[in-house]
């Protein structure tokens, strides 16, 4: 009988030898020695340098582009513009195409309008200056709420809001409206003794990966393309490249590099089709490497939001209803994933009456891209702030209020699924019991807590496992490793096969080596690839057993696999020394050929994840500066395969959230040009801005995974900004409702409150 995903269920009684330990990562040594190859590390003979010309205007019609002078410059081998890419019908691929190379209009400062390939960077830069673009500059709009005003500049004259009554008609920047409801919100509010309704704003932030995008494209005379790039999903890049370039999928081979950070920002390409078009025209390989300025001006920020959030509660602390009206800035094109927000924002509380409406709005900023739990942290900033206020109103401990309302197994969610075993209660109880929660606070300090949820994802996943002649294992995986997934996946293989993790050597295969793998995103990879490799290993084990039975000349059901050896099932079978994998592999040629296992699945059964953050801040009341003095992340991992990798996810996400909370924002001048397109003035936190971020891993196993794991990468960002806002409120008695909570803004809150008190 064939083994399938359904046969792989969590076994609580299984004794583990490898899973749960912390071996060195297979990619670790190359990373610390500098040997690891990142996006910009590919060099081919005859390679040209590609550079992109970008719009200096936030919104402009491109009347014409004259490339003749650039083409005439010695050393320039190709120039491409919108004319070098196929016209596509309206839809996702046309939007992608219009974003990587502007067509009728430039929609933001930094929007690509042309590109050159030349024999040196200096020549390429000179050639860019020789390209003459005739722009008709239009009024622009940056902020999401400005973009929905009646007199706002309109990006697309033909835009009609999807999901809204067309009778409302007229030019609009609202792409779509989506409503999610469960129960009866009005009835729920009628039952409430206390209702809190507040408005919150968040700013777009950048994913802040340290490695700028880089790629090398090599288009060959027979119409094939090789592409090396840094991506979270080389398979999805291939699919989209084929669509926007009108090529066969099989003629594009994408090899992913090691990834210097992605966080969702490398799930969509910007330069890859441009490099391919340049290579096709120049008949030479072309490398494009973005500068930090280009990364910040033209690659995916995270949606900024405006939200109104209302929650009702009885006087003994039971939530009765929740309502939300949410506006998401998506850049010039749809694709913000904003529908995650209404589905995830309240999910973790036992709410029966919810109405949540989201609007997606275009404006003259770069097209947004995914970021850990796309679009959810922005609105949880509001939800957890409202809950904090509700707790204060009835004088209840904020964790107790959340425990009072925590969803448990059997809860039917707004998105249709019913919770299986979930670890929200366990997470909250551990947070409450943590010494941090009761530690004394110093002067000007405050403490906040907040919680978060993420669905976690599965999806298409493939893997191929080969047993080499000496019994060691090579593993071919299809998902770029953004976060230590490789080591965790190898550990599951080692556990299955009863061998050391150093005997399992993984590589990430290019797109021609395996079947399609969904992008590395949504906290899906260690979960999904874990299932795929366990399935592969069990298929290989079945073959190992067959081969051993053959070697002993006994029936196949007369042998068992235990601790890396095939043994006789009982003494009745015969007196045989157990055979190691190496013993069987050595004889593979005589027993039927090489031994392998592979899997091609749609991984199902991802278990939702929950976290609770505790943060202490210290506020300098004279300058508004907020210092994070202590931070603890408590989160359910289902099972931590490699606890250090899990802790790294908790800490890294919290660090990013601290930046988003305190300082990160895009600053535009009055012409819509980004003024802080560099890490000096786009302020992600530096090491000295952060305390040691403590972590507590809760393990409530996911029954649908062979090792019980849940994805962990998205959840730890979700509560961060809310927790910090709650802590600031605790320190100064005023709740910030707008990000970033930067010193000038916090100082203003303090001053306004002081004036208010004086008046009183």
């Amino acid at each position, binding site marked *: 009988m064939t083994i399938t995903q359904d046969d792989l269920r969590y076994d609580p009684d299984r004794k583990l030898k490898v899973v749960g330990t912390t071996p060195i990562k297979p990619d670790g040594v190359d990373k610390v020695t500098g040997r690891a190859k990142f996006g910009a590390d590919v060099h081919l003979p005859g390679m040209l340098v590609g550079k992109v010309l970008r719009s200096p205007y936030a919104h402009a019609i491109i009347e014409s582009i004259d490339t003749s002078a650039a083409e005439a410059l010695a050393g320039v081998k190709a120039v491409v513009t919108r004319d070098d890419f196929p016209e596509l019908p309206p839809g996702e691929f046309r939007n992608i195409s219009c974003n990587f190379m502007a067509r009728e209009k430039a929609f933001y400062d930094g929007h690509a309008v042309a590109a050159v390939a030349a024999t040196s960077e200096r*020549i390429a830069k000179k050639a860019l200056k020789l390209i003459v673009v005739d722009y008709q500059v239009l009024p622009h709009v940056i902020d999401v709420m400005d973009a929905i005003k009646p007199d706002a500049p309109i990006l697309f004259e033909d835009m009609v809001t999807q999901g809204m009554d067309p009778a409302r008609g007229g030019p609009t920047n609202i792409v779509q409206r989506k409503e999610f409801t469960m129960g009866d919100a009005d009835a729920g509010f009628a039952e409430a003794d206390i209702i809190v309704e507040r408005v919150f704003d968040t700013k777009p932030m950048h994913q802040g990966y340290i490695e700028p995008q880089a790629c090398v494209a090599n288009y060959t005379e027979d119409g094939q393309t090789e592409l090396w790039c840094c991506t979270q999903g080389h398979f999805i890049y291939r699919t989209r490249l084929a669509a926007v370039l009108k090529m066969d999928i099989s003629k594009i081979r994408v090899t992913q590099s090691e990834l210097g950070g992605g966080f969702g920002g490398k799930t969509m390409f910007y330069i890859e089709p441009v490099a391919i078009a340049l290579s096709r025209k120049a008949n030479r390989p072309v490398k494009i490497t973005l500068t930090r300025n280009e990364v910040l001006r033209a690659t995916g920020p995270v949606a900024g939001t405006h939200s109104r959030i209302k929650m009702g509660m009885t006087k003994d602390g039971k939530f009765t209803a929740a309502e939300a009206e949410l506006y998401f800035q998506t850049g010039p094109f749809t694709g913000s994933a904003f529908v995650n927000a209404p589905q995830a924002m309240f999910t973790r509380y036992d709410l029966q009456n919810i109405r949540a409406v989201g609007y997606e709005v275009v404006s003259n900023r770069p097209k947004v891209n995914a970021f850990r739990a796309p679009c959810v942290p922005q609105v949880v900033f509001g939800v957890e702030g409202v809950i904090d206020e509700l707790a204060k109103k009835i004088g209840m401990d904020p964790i107790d209020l959340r425990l009072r309302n925590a969803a448990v197994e059997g809860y039917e969610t707004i998105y249709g699924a019913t919770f299986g075993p979930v670890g929200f209660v366990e997470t909250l109880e551990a947070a409450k019991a943590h010494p941090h929660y009761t530690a004394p606070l110093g002067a000007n300090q405050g403490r906040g807590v907040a919680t978060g949820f993420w669905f976690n994802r599965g999806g298409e996943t493939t893997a191929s496992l080969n047993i080499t002649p000496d019994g060691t294992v090579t593993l071919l995986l299809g998902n770029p490793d953004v976060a230590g997934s490789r080591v965790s996946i190898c550990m599951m293989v080692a556990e299955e096969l009863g061998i050391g993790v150093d005997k399992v050597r993984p590589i990430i295969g290019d797109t021609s080596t395996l079947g399609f793998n969904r992008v590395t995103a949504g906290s899906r990879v260690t979960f999904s690839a874990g299932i795929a490799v366990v399935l592969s290993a069990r298929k290989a084990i079945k073959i190992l057993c067959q081969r051993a039975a053959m070697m002993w000349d006994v029936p196949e059901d007369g042998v068992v696999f235990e601790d890396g050896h095939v043994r006789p099932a009982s003494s009745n079978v015969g007196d045989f020394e157990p055979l190691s994998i190496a013993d069987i592999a050595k004889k593979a040629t005589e027993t039927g050929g090489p031994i392998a296992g592979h899997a091609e699945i749609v991984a199902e059964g991802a278990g939702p994840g929950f976290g609770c953050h505790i943060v202490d801040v210290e506020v300098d009341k004279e300058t508004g500066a907020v210092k994070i003095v202590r931070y603890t992340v408590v989160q359910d991992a289902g099972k931590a395969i490699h606890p250090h990798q899990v802790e790294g996810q908790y800490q890294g996400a919290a660090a990013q959230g601290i930046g988003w909370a305190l*300082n990160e924002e895009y600053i535009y001048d009055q012409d819509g040009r980004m003024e*802080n397109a560099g*890490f*000096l003035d786009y*302020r992600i936190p*530096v090491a000295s801005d952060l305390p040691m971020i403590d972590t507590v891993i809760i393990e409530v196993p996911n029954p649908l995974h062979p090792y019980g794991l849940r994805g962990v990468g998205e959840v730890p960002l979700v509560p961060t900004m809310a927790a910090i806002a709650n802590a600031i409120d605790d320190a100064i008695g005023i709740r910030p409702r707008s990000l970033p909570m930067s010193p000038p803004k916090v100082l203003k809150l303090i001053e306004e409150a002081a004036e208010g008190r004086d008046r009183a």
Partner: protein
Amino acid sequence: MDELRYEAPETLDAAVALLAGADGDARILAGGTDVLVLLHCDMIEPDLLIDIKKIPELTGIAEEDGGFRVGAAVSAMELVEHDAFPKAWPGVVEGVKLIGSIQIKGRATMGGNVCNASPAADSVPALIAAGAIGTIVGPDGRRDVPVEDIATAPGQTSLGKGEILVSFLFPPRPPHSGDAYRRFTPRTEMDIAVVGVGISLTLDDGGTCTAARVVLGAVAARALLVADAAAVLIGTPLDEAALERLAAVASAACRPIDDKRGTKEFRIKVAGVLARRVAQDAYERARGN
């Protein structure tokens, strides 16, 4: 294609001759932490870079006339790790320590920090407060100018064609003297001052301030030496009333702009807050000396 020329002369005369005789855009390269960044960002396109790190007069730290002479191309870390200098001028070192990360400070120089002429330069307020004198050599010889007269506006200095800032002379320290520098930045490090304040004080035996220099950075087109703020402190034991007046005078002296790094309103307010804190730091040090 025009090529960028690089020269590393070993004498001051050779460097001055190169700089004075250059056609096109010639730039001095000390640590390179500003020039190379500008070059890589395509913000400058120099024809000639003159590396001055091989010239002895620019790279030494020596005691002179009871004070110190520090070469303009001495790296920030050399100064920070010097045996004697940080004890004499802890405030200057506080400023120097804030010029970027340790790696950047291994290259960055005070001379470069002054000549880059950023109003937010971290070493400059404390240098001016210290009364440091810059020695400048050019085709017409040598001249000495107070550091406050070198930068004139953002990116602009009073140096003439062919002139090079060679060294800083720090005066001898009277007893009961202390200096300090603080800046405000949203991040703890790797950031540009939104406001910077450098103060140097001398006290009498009873703790009354007899001399003071108060300098504000990042609140005007160049660092401001605020005589009125010093006057508020002189004759006082830096009591609450004096500190209160100092904060008010410092805020009033600001002529900031609104920009991506801070608003006028915020800078004005924080300049007063920092002036008070820095004065207290300097006072504690002066009492300890």
